């Protein structure tokens, strides 16, 4: 028991000191209440749908989302557009298909099974169009950044006038949350940039939150199923643990009486 005590105190000192030193290095990100955090976290459907609108009207001109398909938009746990809506969204995109019987590629309206249409044919084309910087694919972007959703949310709102001691090249912008503070993407959002279908006022803050929620879903499309299953699994394990504990006590009582 004394040993356990020691072990735990070592561990606690260790964890506290490491989290302190990590915290010291990190910038404080902007905070907001994410509905998908926590034991029962779920996505806010309306926010996801608005987020899709922001993605498709603003981000999609440069950022691909190559692992998503239009069918995902109507799947459970996502934005949950109706199937008809998702079909209409898909059909609004021109998809290259083929070759046809003449051996030629052709374009047709998108189908549910199609992947999101990419803004550029390949990475090189994307770089060429963006002054050498590749706008990263957004499918798993949230998981590919250390700060996760808070980082993306802050970055979108982190554009500022550069301090006088920082000189910026052409096509480089100052963002206080970006690593190194220099970013090749111009501030993508501005108040009233687009008009939400549900009448929500499209402030930079609101759009940042919506599109970040959408990106969280695109990176973790099964997040809701995971949370639901996780709760059931842990409750089940606790029940079984209690049962096994009492069974163990019963079984071991035979020995103790013998000794």
């Amino acid at each position, binding site marked *: 028991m004394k040993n356990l005590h020691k072990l735990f105190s070592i561990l606690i000192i260790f964890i506290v000191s490491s989290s302190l030193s990590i915290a010291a290095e990190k910038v404080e990100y902007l905070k907001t209440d994410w509905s998908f955090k926590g034991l029962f976290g779920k996505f806010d459907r309306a926010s996801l749908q608005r987020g899709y609108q922001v993605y498709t009207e603003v981000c999609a001109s440069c950022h691909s989302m190559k692992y998503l*398909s239009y*069918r995902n938009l109507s*799947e459970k746990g996502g934005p949950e557009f109706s199937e008809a809506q998702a079909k209409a969204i898909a059909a609004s995109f021109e998809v290259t298909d083929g070759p046809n*019987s003449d051996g030629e590629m052709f374009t047709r309206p998108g189908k*549910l*099974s199609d992947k999101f249409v990419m803004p550029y044919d390949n990475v090189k084309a994307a770089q060429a169009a963006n002054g050498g910087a590749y706008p990263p694919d957004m499918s798993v972007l949230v998981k590919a950044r250390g700060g996760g959703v808070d980082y993306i949310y802050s970055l979108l709102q982190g554009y500022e006038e550069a301090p006088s001691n920082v000189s910026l090249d052409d096509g480089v912008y100052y963002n206080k949350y970006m690593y190194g503070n220099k970013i090749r993407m111009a501030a993508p959002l501005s108040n009233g940039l687009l008009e939400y279908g549900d009448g929500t006022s499209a402030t930079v803050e609101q759009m940042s939150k919506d599109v970040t929620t959408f990106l969280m879903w695109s990176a973790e499309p099964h997040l809701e199923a995971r949370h639901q299953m996780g709760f059931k699994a842990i409750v*089940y*394990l606790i*029940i*079984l643990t209690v*049962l*096994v504990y*009492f*069974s163990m006590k*019963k079984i071991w009582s035979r020995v103790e009486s013998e000794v």
Partner: protein
Amino acid sequence: MSEKKTKRRDFLFTATTAVGAVGAAAVVWPMIDQMNPDASVKALASTEVDVSSLTPGNTLTVLWRGKPVFIRRRTQKEIDEARSVKMEELIHPEKDEDRAKNPEWLVMLGVCTHLGCVPLNDKGDYNGWFCPCHGSHYDTSGRIRKGPAPWNMEVPKYEFVNANTIKIG
């Protein structure tokens, strides 16, 4: 007193075992289900085919769910042949009227019902299809007439979206 005790003990062990078994079974399911068709495969479950270029007496073969589908635009002679057959002569009696709602168009899975080979067009003793693997003969309605295959070639769910497009699945 002691009897009561054993009973309670038995109940505890039974309950523990039962709850444990339920959990074990629940864990096995994902491991099995992962081998079922995944979401991207299911999304391709239907396909639309443009048949505007198909002339009577010709067959178009398209891939649907990884299997060939024969789309045959039949001539009047083939239709008459298929519709005049008596039900008693068939191994697997099915009316041609049921297999081809629009008599000019026959849509069916191009898979022999014997062991899954792809039958050849315009071959065999009945002017329909002939399976080279084990010699099954199909008529102009895709019905089995001779050979080891037990059933007629399967007609999938399909519909004409418009005059020129068939949606299979």
